[in-house]
């Protein structure tokens, strides 16, 4: 379980969020939605414990599987060496990772489909590949909470699709809490149970996706008119999607 | 080291006298004193200097010796003062402890405020070390005389110049004549020594924190080692540089000379060292710390002939047999008008610290 309780965060005079409360129990996933500069990242940092709170408290396990938006290292590490770092909290100061830890790391890489480049240098990978490695590292921590910072922001459509499919797979067993930030409400519709909308005015809206992702709320969130549309997915099943009202070409 | 022939030195002195100045004893006090210092600068004094500051370390005690008292010395280097206060001069001239030593930092950078405060009419400073330590003095409008370190010839020359500057030219003839006589005497006796009979002598300028040995090349220690019939064990070095014990073992000196600068340094330092104690010098107990008389006997100063005689007796005991105690008494009488007691001599020569060294018994009181 991870969440915030009655949290207020101010940057000087500016109030980012006020008495915000939400929680993500094991088995559910949360999408934090909003335009840039509305406090998505701040909320994420607060959940991870990297953000000083002006009021309220943070509910989180000791170790949270965290996937940063991007990572670049001054040192050149191999993929497996990056993933094995996820075991740090279990090893303590002086212990070195053993065969068991390597097994966990490989299993995590396998889960994200990145095992095939375990010996490659991390800095040689593409953005999408790095995301998979960092996700594997978060899994290798063994934490049942997974927090991803803008996981799809730097990905092209094909990779967005792969990532969402992977998140869907990770969500399916319902054995962990997953939190991610995104600016695209469709990602929330695809893989989130709940959504936190960073509404203007420092009072975010929290609730199940189907309840809070209404055209009205989204219009207030993004400042543009939004429409819910139904479309047929690749599997032939009907999907619900969100589009800005300005999208598309005017039909004759 | 042939350039140190006493003849050459005398000629040089005469040339200087002819070229530099016209000097009349006593009667012509009104005449200005004009001479060329060792950096080829003209020094002009309207009357003999009465208030002298020596930033040069050994020169302070030399000025005392030339004047026969401390009256004219109004400022000196702290390192010179420590030698005077700790050594015999402190006893002969107890008032020396009140002479200011704040006129310079120990590395010869003058303190102009302190300098002008003592109102000197002559400041003696090192030449050959750059303008930075000279300009502050000349800019303050003070009369400055620059001297050069290194050889016996230079030493005699600057002692001569200083004696004129302070209006005691009659003192220098005697002192230079003494240096010349002793040097010639040693040279004549040493000339018969075949090279195979010249022991290897090592002089350590510093020992305790790092070891620096005196090599060749304009080095006064090297010069007097050769003068008395020794060879410089560190002849392959140029100047005074750091060496290690293994190198000393390889040289295997027959005699080791320890400096008088490091107060805590004694011959035990050699005898207790696992490497140095196996050298010929230590095995034969021929390790000697240089005495501290009117000044430390290592560098050139007014007592240098005593250094040479002391060392000659130790390096070539079969050739030289100077009665050092008598020579010291005579010299101190001339230099400082002081009757040396036996206890004074013992303390200058470190009899209590190294009286049991080889060949040292002849320095003991009969």
């Amino acid at each position: 379980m991870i969440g915030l309780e009655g949290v207020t965060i101010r940057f000087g005079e500016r109030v980012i969020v006020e008495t915000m409360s939400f929680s993500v129990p094991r088995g559910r996933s949360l999408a934090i939605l909003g335009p840039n500069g509305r406090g998505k990242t701040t909320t994420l940092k607060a959940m991870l414990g990297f953000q000083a709170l002006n009021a309220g408290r943070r509910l989180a396990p000791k170790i949270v599987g965290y996937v940063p938006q991007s990572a670049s290292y001054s040192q050149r590490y191999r993929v497996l060496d990056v993933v094995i770092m996820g075991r740090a909290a279990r090893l303590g100061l002086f212990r070195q990772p053993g065969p068991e830890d390597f097994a966990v790391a490989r299993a995590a890489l396998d889960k994200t489909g990145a095992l095939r480049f375990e010996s490659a240098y991390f800095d040689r990978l593409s953005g999408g590949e790095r995301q998979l490695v960092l996700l594997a590292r978060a899994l290798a921590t063994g934490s049942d909470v997974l927090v991803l910072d803008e996981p799809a922001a730097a990905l092209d459509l094909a990779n967005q699709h792969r990532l969402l499919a992977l998140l869907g797979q990770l969500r399916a067993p319902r054995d962990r809490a997953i939190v991610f930030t995104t600016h695209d409400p469709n990602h929330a519709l695809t893989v989130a149970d709940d959504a936190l909308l960073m509404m203007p005015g420092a009072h975010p809206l929290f609730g199940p996706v189907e309840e809070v992702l209404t055209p009205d709320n989204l219009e207030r969130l993004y400042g543009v008119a939004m429409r819910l549309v139904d479309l047929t997915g690749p599997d032939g099943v009907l999907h619900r999607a969100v589009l800005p009202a300005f999208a598309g070409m005017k039909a004759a | 080291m042939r350039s140190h022939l006493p003849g050459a030195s005398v000629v040089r002195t005469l040339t200087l006298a002819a070229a530099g100045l016209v000097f009349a004893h006593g009667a012509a006090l009104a005449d200005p004193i004009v001479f060329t210092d060792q950096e080829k600068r003209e020094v002009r004094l309207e009357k003999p200097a009465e208030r002298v500051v020596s930033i040069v370390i050994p020169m302070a005690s030399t000025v005392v010796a030339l004047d026969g008292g401390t009256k004219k010395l109004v400022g000196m280097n702290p390192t010179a003062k420590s030698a005077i206060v700790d050594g015999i001069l402190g006893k002969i001239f107890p008032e020396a402890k009140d002479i200011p030593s704040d006129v310079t930092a120990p590395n010869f950078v003058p303190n102009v405020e302190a300098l002008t405060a003592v109102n000197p009419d002559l400041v003696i400073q090192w030449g050959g070390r750059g303008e930075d330590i000279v300009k502050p003095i000349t800019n303050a409008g003070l009369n400055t005389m620059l001297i050069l370190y290194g050889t016996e010839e230079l030493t005699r020359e600057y002692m001569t110049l200083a004696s004129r500057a302070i209006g005691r030219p009659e003192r220098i003839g005697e002192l230079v004549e003494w240096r010349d006589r002793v040097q010639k005497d040693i040279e004549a006796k040493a000339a018969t020594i075949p090279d195979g009979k010249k022991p290897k002598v090592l002089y350590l300028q510093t020992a305790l924190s790092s070891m620096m040995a005196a090599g060749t090349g304009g080095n006064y220690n090297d010069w007097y080692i050769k003068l008395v019939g020794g060879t410089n064990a560190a002849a392959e070095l140029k100047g005074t540089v750091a060496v290690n014990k293994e190198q000393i073992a390889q040289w295997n000196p027959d005699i080791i000379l320890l400096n008088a600068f490091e107060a805590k340094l004694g011959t035990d330092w050699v005898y207790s060292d696992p490497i140095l104690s196996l050298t010929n010098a230590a095995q034969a107990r021929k390790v000697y710390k240089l005495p501290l008389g009117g000044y430390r006997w290592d560098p050139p100063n007014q007592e240098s002939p005593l250094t040479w005689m002391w060392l000659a007796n130790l390096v070539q005991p079969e050739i030289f047999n100077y009665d050092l105690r008598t020579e010291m008494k005579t010299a101190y009488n001339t230099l400082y008008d002081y009757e040396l007691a036996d206890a004074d001599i013992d303390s200058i020569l470190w009899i209590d610290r190294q009286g049991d060294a080889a060949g040292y018994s002849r320095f003991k009181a009969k």
Partner: protein
Amino acid sequence: MVDALSERQPGAIQGAGLVRNTAIFAVLAACLVIALIIGIGAGRFSVAPLRVLELVWHGVVDPSRTLTGMDERIVLLVRAPRVLLAALAGAGLAICGAALQGVFRNPLVSPDILGISQGAAFGGALGIMLGIWGGPLIALVFSTGLAGLALVGFLSRIDGRSETVTVILSGLVVSSMFAAVVSLLQFVADPNTSLPAIVYWLMGSFASATWERFLTALPGLAGGLVLLWSLRFRLNLLSLEEAEARSLGVRTERERWLVFAAIAVIVGSQVAVSGIIGWVGIVIPHAARLVAGHDHRVLLPASALLGGAFMVVIDTLARTVTAAEIPLGVITALVGAPVFAVLLRRHYRERNSE
């Protein structure tokens, strides 16, 4: 991004990496052993090579034996502690450099930046000037080195946390402060005795190495080496972005200072017995990175072995090339700077060509 998740050629398999690491360590260890053998065999006092080996053997099997001959004493009392001290100091400086470059995520930092070297230099200069030597001098040097580090720690700690950049800047401030005081001490030092000693000592030397000095420096050097070595996996984590490292359960602030403390102990002990020796902490980790890679679990021991071998070779040159001892700082700079330049160029050429 084109084929981001598509099949790609698998890299070197783990087994091959293990073989590679073993080979690297075998070669580096051999380098160190060869350097030690050459170091103990070479010197101004000539001892036949076979005699050297015989003496070393005697020294190993019967260390309490009384040594009477000059050659025995030279080999076992002068050269042996000297080469071992050089190896240990070189290993210590190199491992400190590797660790610091990781912690600061900056390949250009070296042990000098934490104020330790200059702090220790101040203690040494002060000690020499006051006429202190031996054990008390070492104690003084060590404590002023630690004081330098503590000062940097104090200055860089703002609101209970110290940022990397404030640590580097505080190190700079404290170092220049100590450097100024050292200059002042040189300014007032006696030109006939303490000044040359201070200058020489500031340039670094193992000339005064004895078994006592070796044993004095041993706990600090060996303890620091072992501490850093056991933190090798942790150093991988400390080289990550602050937030990332903390999310993985690293108490970055506390662990970074643990690394700094280990470095202070190593550098303080080294400076105390052999003065300031530059370049090793920056050149060796770079060279080690080129052969062993960036993973600190491999990089730290590789740096230590290479640093030890390098130092022994440099020191052997310092004491054998001429009758005079050449200050180590001069040789490490003369050898280190060009080697560094070559490594740097090759490194970036490789990078660009890929």
